[in-house]
C-alpha cells in the first residue's frame, strides 16, 4: 500500500530519475514510515550476482561473441533479457572519454549484439572503485557503482545505483546517487496491484531510515496509486525546488549528504539545504494559492521568501501612513491596543484604545476621546469588558477572560481551544475580532469561535465553533469585522488577511516588509479599508473595489 504524501513534513528525497533512455532531473518521491518490506519470494527463481572487475576490463565477450563498445567494464551479468533463448548481457561501464558511468544493455541478435546505454551519469572527476550487478527478482536488475571523487579538493565517496526492469524490454526505472555514509536498500513488490513490480527503497542515513516508493507504470514512474500515467515527470516542472524540499528527508544528520541532479550543484546538508528546503516548500504553497496553509506553515516555523509573499498578495492595495506616536503603555489588565473605524462628521476616523482612547484623523492628528466607548467594551447593560487572550492552544489552553460590569475583578475564563501540541508556542494567537448580540467573536488562522454572552454579561456555555464558510453573527461591532459579519481581518507580520465572501486575500502593499509587526488592526464598515498600527504609524490600506 502506498502511503499518502504527508503535508506536515518537509518531504521526500529528490533523486535522479531516468525513464527509458532519457536523462532528466531527479524524482520527488513520498516519504513513508520506516517499515521494510522484504523482496517477495519468487519460487522457481534464483537471485544471481554478476561478475565484477574492480580494475575494469577493456573488452567483454559472451559465449565467444564480443560485446561492442565495451569501454571499461566493471561488472557483467549475462541473462536472457528478451526471452528468445539466447544469452544477452548487462554491463556496468565507464566511458572515460565522455566522463560518464552507466549501464549498457546488450541484446544478442544472431551473431551480433545490439547495445543500448541508457541513463549514464557523469563521473565529474570521480573514479569507480567497486561495481556490482545483481538479478534480485525475475524482472528486476540492480547495478551499483561506488565511486571516489577527488575533484576540487574534495575527497569523498558516492554510490550510484540503477534499477532496471525487464518486463517488456530492458529499461531503466530508477537511478539514484547518494553521497557519504548513506545506505540504500531496494525491495521489489507489486505495490499498486497492476501485475508488475514496483520499487520500494529504504534509505539509512545517520542512523535513521526513510522508506521511499515508486510505482512503475508503462508510461513511467508515478507517485500516486490513483494516477494513470507517470506523474513524476509532471512534478519535474519545478523539480529543483521540490527537490530541495524533498531532500530534507534525507538530511538526517551532519554526516548525511545528498547529491541532486546530474550537475555539480549538489548541496551539503543540513543548514544550506534545510533552509532552502523550508523556503521552497512555503513558497510553493503560496504560488499554488494555498495561502492559509502557507501561513500555517509559517506559524509552525517554516520560512517564506518576501518575493513569494508579495506575489501571493492581492494586487492594487494602496497605502497611506499616519504618524501616530502612541501615548503611554497599554495596561496589562486591559486588552491589547485596539483600533476601530469611526464614521462621524463625514470623514472616517480611527479610534485607538489602549491606556487612553484617541481619535485619529486623516491628517494624523490625535485627539483625546475618552467619552467614546472602547472598541472592546460592550455598550450594553450591564457592560462587559474583554481582556487578554491567554495562551494559544499549543502548550496550554487558550482562553478569553471576561470582566463583568467594566471592572477588573471577577474574571470569567472562557476556554477557546485545548492544547493541540503545535510546534511553535508563540504561534496561532487568538484575536478578538469583535462582538455581536450573541457574544464575542474570536479567531485565529484556520479557526473561529463565538463566545455566547448572556444579558447578564456571563459566558453562556461552551463557545460555538464556526465552520470555515459560516457567517459571523450579526450585527457585528468591533474593529476587525464589518457590521454584516461578511468581512473580517487578521493582522499578521506578513500582511493583513482579509476574509470576505468565502475568499481570503493577503493585503501586503509595497514596502510592507520594511516595518514592525502589527500591534492592532481594524476594518472599515464597508470592508474597503484596513487600518494597521505598526510601531508609531498607522497604515491605511485601501483596495480598488
Amino acid at each position: 500500500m502506498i502511503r499518502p504524501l504527508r503535508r506536515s513534513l518537509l518531504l521526500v528525497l529528490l533523486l535522479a530519475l531516468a525513464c527509458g533512455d532519457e536523462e532528466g532531473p531527479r524524482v520527488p518521491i513520498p516519504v513513508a514510515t520506516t517499515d521494510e518490506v522484504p523482496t517477495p519470494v519468487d519460487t522457481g527463481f534464483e537471485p544471481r550476482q554478476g561478475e565484477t572487475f574492480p580494475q575494469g576490463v577493456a573488452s567483454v565477450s559472451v559465449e565467444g561473441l564480443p560485446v561492442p563498445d565495451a569501454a571499461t567494464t566493471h561488472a557483467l551479468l549475462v541473462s536472457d533479457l528478451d526471452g528468445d533463448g539466447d544469452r544477452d548481457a548487462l554491463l556496468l561501464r565507464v566511458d572515460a572519454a565522455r566522463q560518464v558511468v552507466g549501464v549498457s544493455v546488450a541484446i544478442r541478435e544472431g551473431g551480433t549484439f545490439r547495445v543500448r546505454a541508457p541513463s549514464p551519469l557523469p563521473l565529474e572527476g570521480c573514479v569507480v572503485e567497486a561495481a556490482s550487478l545483481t538479478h534480485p527478482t525475475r524482472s528486476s536488475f540492480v547495478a551499483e557503482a561506488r565511486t571516489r571523487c577527488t575533484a576540487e579538493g574534495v575527497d569523498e565517496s558516492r554510490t550510484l545505483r540503477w534499477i532496471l526492469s525487464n518486463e517488456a524490454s530492458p529499461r531503466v526505472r530508477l537511478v539514484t546517487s547518494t553521497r557519504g555514509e548513506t545506505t540504500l536498500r531496494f525491495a521489489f513488490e507489486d505495490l499498486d496491484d497492476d501485475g508488475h513490480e514496483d520499487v520500494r527503497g529504504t534509505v539509512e542515513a545517520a542512523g535513521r531510515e526513510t522508506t521511499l516508493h515508486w510505482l512503475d507504470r508503462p508510461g513511467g514512474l508515478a507517485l500516486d496509486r490513483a494516477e494513470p500515467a507517470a506523474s513524476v515527470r509532471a512534478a519535474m516542472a519545478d523539480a529543483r525546488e521540490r527537490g530541495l524540499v524533498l531532500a530534507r528527508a534525507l538530511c538526517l544528520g551532519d554526516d548525511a549528504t545528498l547529491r541532486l541532479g546530474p550537475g555539480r550543484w549538489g548541496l551539503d546538508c543540513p543548514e544550506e539545504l534545510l533552509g532552502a528546503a523550508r523556503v521552497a516548500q512555503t513558497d510553493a504553497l503560496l504560488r499554488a494559492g494555498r495561502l492559509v496553509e502557507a501561513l500555517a506553515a509559517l506559524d509552525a516555523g517554516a520560512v517564506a521568501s518576501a518575493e513569494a509573499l508579495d506575489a501571493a498578495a492581492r494586487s492594487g492595495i494602496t497605502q497611506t501612513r499616519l504618524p501616530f506616536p502612541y501615548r503611554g503603555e497599554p495596561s496589562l489588565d486591559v486588552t491589547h491596543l485596539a483600533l476601530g473605524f469611526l464614521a462621524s462628521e463625514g470623514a472616517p476616523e480611527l479610534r485607538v484604545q489602549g491606556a487612553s482612547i484617541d481619535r485619529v484623523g486623516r491628517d494624523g492628528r490625535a485627539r483625546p476621546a475618552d467619552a467614546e466607548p472602547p472598541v472592546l467594551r460592550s455598550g450594553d447593560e450591564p457592560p462587559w469588558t474583554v481582556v487578554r487572550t491567554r495562551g494559544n492552544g499549543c502548550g496550554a489552553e487558550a482562553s478569553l477572560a471576561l470582566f463583568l460590569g467594566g471592572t477588573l475583578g471577577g474574571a470569567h475564563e472562557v476556554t477557546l481551544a485545548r492544547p493541540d501540541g503545535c510546534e511553535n508556542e508563540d504561534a496561532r494567537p487568538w484575536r478578538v475580532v469583535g462582538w455581536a448580540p450573541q457574544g464575542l467573536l474570536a479567531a485565529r488562522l484556520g479557526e473561529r469561535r463565538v463566545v455566547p454572552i448572556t444579558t447578564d454579561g456571563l459566558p453562556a456555555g461552551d463557545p460555538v465553533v464556526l465552520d470555515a464558510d459560516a457567517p459571523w453573527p450579526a450585527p457585528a461591532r468591533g474593529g476587525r469585522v464589518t457590521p454584516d459579519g461578511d468581512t473580517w481581518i487578521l493582522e499578521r507580520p506578513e500582511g493583513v488577511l482579509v476574509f470576505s465572501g468565502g475568499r481570503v486575500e493577503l493585503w501586503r502593499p509595497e514596502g510592507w516588509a520594511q516595518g514592525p509587526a502589527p500591534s492592532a488592526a481594524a476594518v472599515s464598515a464597508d470592508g474597503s479599508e484596513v487600518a494597521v498600527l505598526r510601531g508609531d504609524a498607522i497604515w491605511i490600506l485601501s483596495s480598488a473595489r
Partner: protein
Amino acid sequence: MKLSATLLLLVLASCRTGQDTPQPTPCMSDSECRADRICHEGRCRFLEEVRAELGAQTSIGGEANVDASVPPAPDAAVEAPVFAELPMFMGGPRHRGRTANAGPATEPRRAWTHRTRARVFASPVVGPDGTVYVGSLDKTFSAVAADGTLRWRYVAGDKIYASAALAADGTVYVGSLDHHLVALEPSGRVKWRLDLGDEIDASPTVGPDGTVYASAAGVYAVDPAGAIRWHVPTASHVRSSPALHPEGFVVVGTPEGTVVAVRTNGEVAWRAEAGASIDGAAAITDDGMIVVGTDRGHVVAFDASGAERWRFETGDDVRATPAVAPDGTLVVGSYDRHVYALSAAGQLRWRFETTGRLRASARIDPEGRIYVGSQDDGLYCLSPAGELLWRVEVGQDIDSTAAIGGDGTLYVGADDGGLHAFVAR
C-alpha cells in the same frame, strides 16, 4: 426612537388598501387592547360585540367554530380559549395552522428573499412587530425586518431545522441540532442556552404561563429562566413538536408510533399507538381531538383520553402536521403528492394533486384559503373546496410551512436557502 409594537401595528393596519372602514387593532392578548376590548381572533373587539357574534353563530346550528374569547382565570393551567395566532409553529400551541391575517388571494409577486447558505426547512415565525424569524441548515437563525433587511443573526453550533417560538414578553426560543435550546431577546442577545443532551429538530411550544415545551430525547418543560421543570424520556429521539391540549396536557408523537400525553405537571396521562413513526406534530382540533400523521400514510385521530376515533389512509408517508379549519375540516399533505381535506369524522372531502411530495404543513387564513408548499418547488393556494387559486414557482423544494404577516405578506422557506416574501400584486 423605536416605535412601540402597538404603534407599529397601527401604522401597518392603516396602510392596508381596499378597506373603507377602520379595522380593529391587531393583537395577541387582551392586555394589548385598550379599554374594555378583548383580543378575539387576532383583533381587539368589544366584548359585547363578540358575545353577540358567538351567540348568532351557535344558534345557526353549527358547532361554534371559534373559542369563546373570555379571558382566562389567572391561575388557569390550560390555554386560554382565545383564537389568536401566536408566533410559533402552526400559529399556536394547538398547531391548528390558522392564521390571523389573510394571505394573497391571487398570484402574488416575490417582494424579497433573504438568503442563507443552506436549506430553510423551518417555518418562519412573524413577531408582533413584523420581524420574521427563521432558522437554516447553515446553522444560522435570522431576524429579518419586514422590508427584508437583516436585523440580527444568531449562529448555532449545528443545523437549525425547527421553527422558533415567541413568548408574550418577546423572548425568542429556538432549538438546534447542537443540542441547545436558546432563549434570545428581541435584540438577539442571549438570555440563556440550555443543553438538552440531544439534537433538537422539533419546534418548541410556549404555554400560556410562559413554560417552554421542547422535544429532544423525550419531552421537556422549561421555565422562562431556563431551568428544566420536568423531563419525560422516550425510547428514542422525538421529532414531533409538543402540542398543548386545552384539558391540560402536552402531546407528542414518537418514532415508535406512540402518541404520548403528559400532564403539565410532568405525569404521563396516557399513551396511544398510531402504528408507525410520527414525524409531524399533533394538531388539537376545536373539540379536543388529537390528530397525527404517520409514516405508514395514515392520518389518525384520538380523543382526549387516547382512544382512537378514526383512521384515514393516504398513499404514502404523512409527515406534515394537519391544519384544522374553523369548520373542523382537516387539511394535510402526504408524500403521495396530494393535499387531503378530511371531515372531522375522517371522511374524505376532497384531495388536490401536486407533482411533488408534501412535507410542509398547510396554513389556513381567515378566508379559508389554504397555503401549502410542495417538493415540486411550488407554493400553492387552494380554495376551501380544494380548487387551485394560484401557484408560484419558488425554485426548489418547499418543506417549510408558510406564515402570513400582519400586512398579508406570505413568508416561506425553501431548499434554495431562501426565506421568500410574497405580496399581492
